């Protein structure tokens, strides 16, 4: 075995490396969780300073082949024993390259802000999550085969410091254990393999162990996941997630029988991906699940006030090495994710995928801010690659600023909230309705211009001239019509003044209104004269002219009759005649007036029809 030999060489080299500082680890307790495809190693380190100097950093060492799979690493300190974990303090962790160390080791430095004084001790909880650390073995299996995986680790904690007491627990899924390395102090207890305790080991001790076990949980790996989060201040945060999924377990070989799978899915296809569960935020709406062909109908949705759960089934059960691509999208209420603080707005939303069991090779989160956002800054709880681009969407002029965050090797622990801060004026929201309004307004303006423009080519053709003249006649007739309308309202006013007189007996008021109407009627006849003249001079108006002239004559008649009636009534009132007598006196006139009014109305209707 080549790599065993390598390790031996590695150990020899390592042992020759000088010890860095006076720290020792008095107790190391490690628990490795292999129940999911992401390997979680929780180490509790009790660090003691035996030297006299203040120590401000603790180094964690990982072999390079493990470090390249490292997805997530945190170091916390739980202050106070037995208390709630809320008092935990997280320390900053950075990659460092200390001098004189072996090049095949990657070191991470945990900075202690307070430092560790002489004789002091500290308990560190280190959580390291590795993606792709489980190797399928055999690499190719047929449909009814179970999936077996191999995991390599060191039974001794690899550290640049001496370790006094240590133990290791490996938690395996509740299934068959094919084999595990048996070294001194190895115990098996149900699905847990225990190594240790080992005492007083020098720095850089390494003792390779291999665990080979059945792991039928699906190895859903998103080779690329693009999450697009689009903010609309009109009340929505739209999330669209494009998955490029592959089953990363043992490759499928031989033929696939849908019949066998359908009949006994848990035997003939135990490691296949049947479905995935996306835990969406509460109040998610407009949820869809589709791919390039269209909607995928095999999905289920539950919702309660705390969460929304979407169970999606791919178009086919996914065996090792099979791929699929799909998109899920959902809308979220704005007020749950967008906040206002100190003059800036910020989006507070989770970074990772809502599907917990997926390990993501490359995650690209795009935050599309509304048009007109400025002063954009991102605050993420872990380092990410940042970029910026522009997206054109509905009703955009200059495009929306897009923040692009990229991260490789994303696991469940990265499902933390991140913030995008930006400045935005509420007035810029109204740019979109303004665009719609101006669009409609241009349509109306175009109509107005079309109706006003003269589009005929030949300006001297007889038909064109005739049309012009006819337009003129029409305009003239319409003006005459308007004048008669005014006339008739004045007539009504006179009648109304008579009614007022009979009610109140105020002769003076009646006379005054008569005088006003007289003046207005005179003005009207003055206005009418040039119109009639222009109609008479126009040859096109020949047909209509007699009617107009008749109308003028009738109206004048009507007007005279009305005046006479008015004078009579007023006179009678002045002479204090009784109501009946007045009625008798004007009865004849009233008849004529009604007849004339009827004729005038008929004539006006006739003219309207032209």
């Amino acid at each position: 075995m080549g790599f065993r030999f390598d390790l031996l060489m590695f150990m020899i080299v390592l042992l020759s490396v000088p010890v860095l500082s006076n720290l020792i680890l008095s107790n190391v307790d490690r628990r490795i969780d292999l129940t999911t495809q992401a390997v979680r190693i929780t180490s509790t380190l009790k660090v003691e300073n035996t030297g006299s100097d203040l120590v401000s950093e603790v180094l964690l060492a990982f072999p390079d082949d493990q470090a390249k799979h490292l997805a997530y690493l945190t170091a916390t300190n739980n202050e106070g024993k037995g208390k709630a974990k809320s008092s935990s303090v997280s320390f900053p962790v950075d990659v460092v390259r200390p001098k004189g160390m072996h090049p095949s080791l990657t070191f991470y430095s945990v900075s202690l802000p307070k430092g560790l004084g002489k004789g002091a001790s500290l308990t560190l909880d280190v959580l390291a999550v590795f993606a792709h650390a489980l190797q399928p073995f055999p690499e190719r299996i047929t449909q009814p085969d179970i999936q077996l995986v191999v995991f390599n680790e060191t039974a001794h904690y690899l550290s640049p410091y001496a370790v006094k007491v240590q133990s290791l627990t490996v938690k395996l899924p509740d299934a068959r254990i094919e084999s595990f390395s048996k070294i001194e102090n190895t115990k098996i207890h149900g699905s847990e393999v225990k190594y240790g305790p080992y005492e007083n080991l020098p720095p850089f001790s390494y003792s390779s162990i291999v665990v080979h076990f059945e792991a039928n949980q699906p190895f859903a790996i998103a080779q690329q996941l693009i999450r697009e989060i689009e903010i609309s201040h009109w009340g929505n945060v739209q999330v669209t997630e494009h998955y490029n999924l592959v089953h990363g377990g043992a490759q499928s070989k031989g033929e696939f029988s849908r019949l066998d799978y359908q009949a006994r899915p848990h035997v003939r296809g135990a490691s296949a991906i049947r479905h995935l569960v996306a835990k969406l935020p509460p109040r998610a709406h407009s949820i869809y699940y589709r791919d390039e062909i269209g909607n995928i109908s095999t999905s289920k949705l539950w919702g309660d006030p705390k969460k929304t759960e979407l169970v999606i089934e791919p178009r086919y059960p996914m065996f090792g090495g099979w791929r699929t691509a799909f998109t899920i999208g959902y809308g979220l209420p704005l007020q749950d994710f967008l906040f206002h603080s100190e003059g800036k707005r910020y989006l507070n939303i989770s970074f990772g995928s809502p599907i917990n069991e997926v390990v993501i090779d490359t995650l690209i989160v795009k935050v599309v801010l509304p048009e007109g956002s400025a002063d954009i800054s991102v605050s993420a709880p872990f380092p990410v690659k940042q970029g910026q681009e522009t997206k054109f969407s509905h009703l955009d002029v200059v495009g929306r600023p897009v923040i692009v965050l990229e991260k490789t090797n994303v696991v469940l622990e990265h499902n933390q909230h991140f913030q995008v801060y930006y400045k935005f004026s509420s007035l810029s929201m109204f740019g979109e309705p303004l665009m719609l309004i101006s669009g409609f307004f241009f349509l109306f303006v175009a109509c107005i211009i079309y109706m006003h423009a003269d589009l005929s080519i030949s300006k001297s053709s007889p038909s064109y001239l005739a049309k012009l003249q006819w337009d003129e006649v029409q305009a003239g007739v319409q003006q005459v019509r308007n004048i008669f309308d005014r006339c008739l309202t004045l007539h009504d006013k006179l009648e109304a003044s008579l009614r007022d007189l009979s009610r109140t007996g105020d002769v003076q008021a009646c006379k005054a209104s008569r005088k006003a109407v007289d003046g207005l009627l005179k003005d009207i006849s003055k206005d009418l004269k040039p119109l009639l003249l222009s109609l008479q001079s126009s040859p096109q108006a020949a047909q209509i002219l007699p009617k107009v002239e008749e109308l003028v004559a009738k109206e004048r008649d009507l007007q005279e009759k009305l005046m006479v009636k008015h004078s009579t009534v007023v006179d009678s009132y002045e002479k204090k005649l009784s109501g009946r007598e007045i009625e008798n006196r004007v009865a004849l006139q009233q008849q004529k007036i009604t007849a004339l009014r009827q004729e005038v109305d008929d004539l006006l209707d006739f003219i309207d029809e032209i």
Partner: protein
Amino acid sequence: MAPKPIASPVPDAWYPSLSVFMLAIGLFVTASFFIYEATSSRRNRSLTKELITGAVASVFLGFGSLFLLLASGVYV
């Protein structure tokens, strides 16, 4: 200062009814605009009246179509 959640200026639930009413008013004004265009003769048409009717119609149609987009899930 504690962060305050930001909501939309108009509650989401109003979008469908707002769009129906504003589009109805907008289409009504549009109809009156075209009736005026078609019935009044070229000489005694008033440009201000046309422009005002057009502007009112476009404001109602603009907001109406915006709310229609929002109600149908196209968050602009």
